């Protein structure tokens, strides 16, 4: 009968679906492992760079070197992750690595700032993280994740401006103030949607205000 016919087909059809789900789960499981590894390395790098806030004198160059060594591991881990993501399905699984990528973008941008006092470009990030620059090239850094990283950088630098003064460095805050001003000018060119990135950007003005007040305190006390 038609129905029993269908039944047979059904089972076959559904078994093929089952394969789909099994594969999907395996891919996700594998991705999760890579993300866990990236997460671990990101935490280690954070552990290194957060000592920049220590009021005792910090050897920034060596701190950057140590971090850069860890980034070699990051590149390896991204390479592994990349192999696990089916071609053309970057955005299907994006949610898995979105978070850790934002954090790594922040860490990379922080190191680049500490080294050269410039804003990290996507090329910089691409080389540090070992991923493609542009989406068309395959596994890349989503632009919004990159920008989120830059906004986290802004907060961290605002904190650094405060702690620099405590450590007796009155020049760094002034430089940070200029840098954040320029970053703000850049962001204000963008026509952001009403999403997480926009909300995070709205917070940038508080970081800027904080640093401006630090510069004010230094100036009025003749410390500049």
């Amino acid at each position, binding site marked *: 009968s038609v129905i029993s016919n269908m039944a047979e087909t059904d089972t076959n059809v559904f078994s093929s679906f089952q394969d789909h789900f099994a594969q999907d789960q395996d891919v996700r499981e594998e991705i999760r492992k890579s993300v866990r590894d990236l997460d671990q390395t990101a935490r280690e790098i*954070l*552990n290194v760079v957060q000592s920049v806030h*220590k009021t005792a004198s910090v050897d920034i160059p060596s701190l950057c070197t140590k971090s850069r060594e860890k980034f070699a591991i990051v590149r390896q881990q991204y390479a592994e992750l990349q192999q696990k993501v089916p071609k053309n399905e970057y955005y299907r699984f994006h949610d898995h690595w979105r978070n850790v990528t934002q954090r790594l973008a922040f860490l990379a941008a922080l190191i680049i700032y500490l080294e050269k006092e410039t804003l990290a470009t996507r090329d910089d990030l691409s080389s540090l993280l070992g991923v493609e620059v542009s989406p068309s090239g395959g596994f890349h850094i989503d632009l919004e994740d990159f920008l989120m990283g830059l906004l986290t950088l802004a907060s961290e630098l605002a904190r650094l401006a405060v702690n620099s*003064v*405590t450590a007796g460095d009155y020049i760094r805050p002034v430089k940070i103030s200029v840098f954040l001003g320029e970053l703000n000018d850049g962001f204000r060119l963008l026509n952001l949607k009403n999403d997480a990135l926009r909300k995070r950007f709205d917070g940038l003005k508080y970081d800027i205000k904080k640093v401006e007040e630090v510069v004010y305190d*230094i100036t009025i*006390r*003749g410390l500049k």
Partner: protein
Amino acid sequence: KRRQDDRKATSEDSPVYAAFQTYQKELDAKHDRTERLVKASRDLTTCSKRIIFLLHRVVGAANRLKILQEAEQKFGDAKNLLEKIARELHADGNGGGGNGDATHRYRRSYKWGVQEYIEALSFYHYCQHGSLIGYEEMLKMVEFPEAAPPSPPTAEDAVGNDAAKRSRDVLRLAVSPLDYILGIADLTGECMRMCINSVGSGEKDGLAGMCDFVRGIYDAFRTLNCTSGEIGQKVEVMEASLRKMETTCYNVTVRGSERFPQVEEDEE
């Protein structure tokens, strides 16, 4: 109607009925125990909070020692409540997989009190020694002499390794590393309060140390690989506290280094 009654009559003699009578007892016992734990936990919270308020009076106080002694006394009350909780959990040992497992089973009922206690205890320790109380040291505070059968080893084995060696004829409240950590997270808030109070009271000496103390804890939390969602929120609060402390240190530094016009006049 008669059929109904017949069914009922047999029903109450049935093995099903008998089985559910024992289920009833088990469930009631669990619920009653939960209630007792919740109450003890609330009392412990109140008691711990008062200790914390007491300790804040140390800043700028002439009678620092007297206050610490008073705190010591209040810790006696807290200890009684902790013992109550420990005994309650131990009593479930027969039916709930030993004291150790009761610790996990009822955690939700008493964790608030225990965390507040950890907060108070670590704050007291910090006021006295300027350092963080260790997990092992904290565990010693929740041991109670006991002639009863020993409680099995617990979570602490995962962390301390000499725990197992300890005398077995004590009753121990197996505070989990997680609850310890959460209590410590709250400690940083109290440190922040003390830090800013110190400036207002003119006691500016220890500021940098306080700040480093909390920064150390914050750094450790930020790089802690922990799945518990309970920690996430606390880290945010902790970050806010630390920023307040850093700003305070900054304020004291920047004004302390002011170049006065008269100095410049001298230079002229």
